[in-house]
């Protein structure tokens, strides 16, 4: 047989590389802006499109799907071709994949500031964009499998299994968590409600971390680390065990995001048990990476790419040690909702994802441009300022998290809360937040220096768009002897590998999700809980639009420090009409689950206009546009119908009365405000959101006196 000559496509790798850097800078700049907004509310810039609640999701989407996403595709397109000894299946699909993905990101950049959001964390994009993501993901899949089918290397290296697992799992996660009923072009309601919605969301959310921020990066680690160090991975057997154990266990761990909520206890326990087991495969992977460098530490000293890899792997080890600890109930009871989680996230994100991405960029760009890196000094500077940036980010966040949680849980000897006012604890941690933004700025500056360095590198070289290679074609399968162990056979069969990975993740998915989604006894109903009135429903949609849930939780955990502060702890039956659930994951402000009737309407009106009028020193942004903008009721009918379709018991035909009811309730609130000398028309948005806030948690509060 003759060796075949072919060309690796470097251009697509370069394109994804450029996109990685540009979106990285944009996403982190938005991160820096929101970090500043947390101590300087004026940085919200006085308009609705740049308020914290709307651009925090922009930060998370931009860094995860644009920065990390493009970096994944860069790494996959580079390594897949070389591991399979084949050019990508189709240049056209590569092109569609690249531009389609950028188009999705741009649509996120437009829609999120406009307040078009589902409110599901890391899945905020509305349904038309969800469909686009699905299509582009399929394009990626066809391109990847097409390449696998025309490969010139029979066996699939472990990196590729990680890519395959990423592909199938993200597909499953995305589809299940995007089941929405559209109401209009950019508004939809989640099919699930309350506890069920929460479970699906965090099954998704956790596994977005697992299969977007982790498995593709592990795959890249298994390819690029041996390349950079010019030696094989420490233990290939360990990598096999690592792979199967990791994907099996990860899928179960979602409920650790919902500890002490109303999720059924057994589901919480399941999540905890598997989260703790996760430490084993995670550390297996990290150790496998670090040991690859054994005896090569002198190389690490003068090679900046390896330095980035080592710190990245160490950060991975830290995050995956901390994660299981955070899953222990008593630790989580303390850490959840606090800045501790933000520290955990960014150790992983900045250290592991960020540093691996930088290492790969520094390694790959000079190679595809056939030149040397423009400046090693600048790269080294980037390494140091990036590392310092992580420290200045993480340490203040741990400190802030501990301080605030301790304060919130502290009682006086008389048995009353030492700091009954949430704001007191917020003010205490502002200095830490300032330090964090300094850390973020350092990290971002490093990325900008890298962008300059890589641009100069590209300018001094010339892109080798098509890199020539030569390899023997594969013999037809029937000529090879059917020998080899099971796994060796699996490595030859990409489709079987795909199915095996799919089955492995479906096991955990079914056992964990099905009971809560199908057995109604898991969610005890409460007779006094009634559907929202049309005005409240509209108010709730404003709450979603403004992204209030990015700072305010709606779930009171059964701790004395919380029941004293907020009132009766939350019950599963209270959320049965909440499409979507709005429990939140971070308490930058106080919980709102029992906010209803705590204050008068006038208090809320003034507070929304300028929070500092009612709470001096508050860091919440002004929402003055709610006062000037008219409530859009053109969709109210459709919303009622949609909710009924989803099982909310609005009487048949109620949609025709809804407008009348809405006006009546709005007028009531406007009249009530007028008594406090506040003149506002009943058709303003603020009326609807007040109606919603006053309803929160009152259904079961009716027969109890508010505890505060």
């Amino acid at each position, binding site marked *: 047989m003759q060796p075949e000559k072919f060309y690796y496509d470097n251009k697509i790798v370069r394109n994804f590389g450029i996109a990685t850097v540009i979106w990285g800078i944009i996403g982190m700049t938005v991160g820096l802006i929101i970090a500043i907004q947390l101590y300087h509310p004026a940085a919200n810039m006085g308009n609705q499109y740049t308020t914290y609640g709307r651009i925090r999701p922009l930060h998370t989407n931009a860094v995860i799907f644009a920065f990390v996403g493009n970096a994944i595709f860069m790494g996959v397109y580079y390594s897949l071709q*070389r591991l399979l000894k084949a050019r990508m299946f189709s240049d056209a699909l590569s092109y569609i994949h690249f531009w389609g993905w950028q188009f999705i990101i741009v649509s996120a950049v437009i829609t999120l500031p406009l307040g078009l959001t589902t409110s599901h964390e890391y899945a905020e994009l509305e349904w038309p964009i969800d469909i686009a993501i699905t299509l582009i993901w399929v394009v990626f899949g066809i391109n990847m499998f097409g390449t696998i089918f025309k490969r010139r290397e029979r066996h699939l290296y472990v990196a590729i299994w990680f890519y395959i697992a990423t592909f199938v799992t993200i597909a499953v996660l995305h589809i299940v968590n995007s089941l929405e009923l559209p109401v209009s072009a950019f508004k939809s309601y989640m099919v699930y409600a309350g506890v069920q919605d929460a479970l699906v969301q965090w099954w998704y959310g956790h596994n977005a971390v697992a299969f977007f921020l982790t498995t593709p990066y592990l795959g890249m680690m298994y390819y690029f680390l041996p390349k950079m160090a010019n030696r*094989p991975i420490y233990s290939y057997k360990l990598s*096999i065990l690592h792979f199967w154990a990791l994907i099996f266990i990860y899928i*179960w761990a979602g409920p650790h995001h919902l500890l002490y909520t109303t999720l059924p206890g*057994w589901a919480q326990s399941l999540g905890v048990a598997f989260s703790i087991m996760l430490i084993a495969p995670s550390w297996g992977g990290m150790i496998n990476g670090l040991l690859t460098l054994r005896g090569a530490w002198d190389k690490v000293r003068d090679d900046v790419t390896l330095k980035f890899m080592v710190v990245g792997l160490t950060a991975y080890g830290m995050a995956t040690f901390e994660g299981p600890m955070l899953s222990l109930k008593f630790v989580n009871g303390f850490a959840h909702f606090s800045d501790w989680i933000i520290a955990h996230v960014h150790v992983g994100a900045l250290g592991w994802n960020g540093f691996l991405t930088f290492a790969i960029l520094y390694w790959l760009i000079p190679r595809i441009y056939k030149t040397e890196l423009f400046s090693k000094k600048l790269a080294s500077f980037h390494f140091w300022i990036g590392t310092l940036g992580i420290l200045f980010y993480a340490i203040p966040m741990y400190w802030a998290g501990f301080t605030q949680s301790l304060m919130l849980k502290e009682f006086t000897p008389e048995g009353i809360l030492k700091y009954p006012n949430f704001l007191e604890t917020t003010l205490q941690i502002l200095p830490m937040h300032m330090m964090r933004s300094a850390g973020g700025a350092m990290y971002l500056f490093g990325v900008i220096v890298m962008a300059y360095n890589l641009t100069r590198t590209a300018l001094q070289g010339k892109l080798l768009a098509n890199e*020539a290679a*030569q390899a023997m074609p594969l013999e037809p399968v029937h000529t090879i002897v059917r020998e080899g162990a099971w796994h060796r056979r699996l*490595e030859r069969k990409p489709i079987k590998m795909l199915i095996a990975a799919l089955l492995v993740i479906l096991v955990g998915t079914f056992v964990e999700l099905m009971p809560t989604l199908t057995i109604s006894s898991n969610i005890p109903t409460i007779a006094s809980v009634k559907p929202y009135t049309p005005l409240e429903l509209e108010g709730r949609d404003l709450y979603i639009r403004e992204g209030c849930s990015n700072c305010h939780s709606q779930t009171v955990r059964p701790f004395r420090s919380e029941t004293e502060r907020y009132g009766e702890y939350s019950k599963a039956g209270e959320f049965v009409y909440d499409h979507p659930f709005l429990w939140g994951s971070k308490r930058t402000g106080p919980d709102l689950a029992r906010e209803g009737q705590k204050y008068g309407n006038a208090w809320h009106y003034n507070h929304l206009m300028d929070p500092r009028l009612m709470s001096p020193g508050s860091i919440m942004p002004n929402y003055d546009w709610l006062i000037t903008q008219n409530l859009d009721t053109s969709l109210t009918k459709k919303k009622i119908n949609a909710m009924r379709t989803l099982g909310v018991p609005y009487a048949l035909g109620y949609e025709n009365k809804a407008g009348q009811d809405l006006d009546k309730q709005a007028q009531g609130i406007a009249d009530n405000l007028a008594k406090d000398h506040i003149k506002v028309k009943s058709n303003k948005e603020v009326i609807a959101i007040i109606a919603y806030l006053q309803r929160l948690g009152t259904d079961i509060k009716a027969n109890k006196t508010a505890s505060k």
Partner: protein
Amino acid sequence: MFKQFTENINGNQAYLLFSLGIFFVFFIVVSIMLIRIRKSHIEHMSDLPLEDSTINSTKSLEP
């Protein structure tokens, strides 16, 4: 450390045991597969990233 699991299961202990059971079986199967892999194959696999068959390999660029 383990008390918190057993205490919070609310009568659905079977679930937890079942799940851990499947994992255990799965783990054993993967381990058996691992044991059956030949050394020569492992070597071939771990060398895959290092040989990318480029003509004028980028090797010349390495120090």
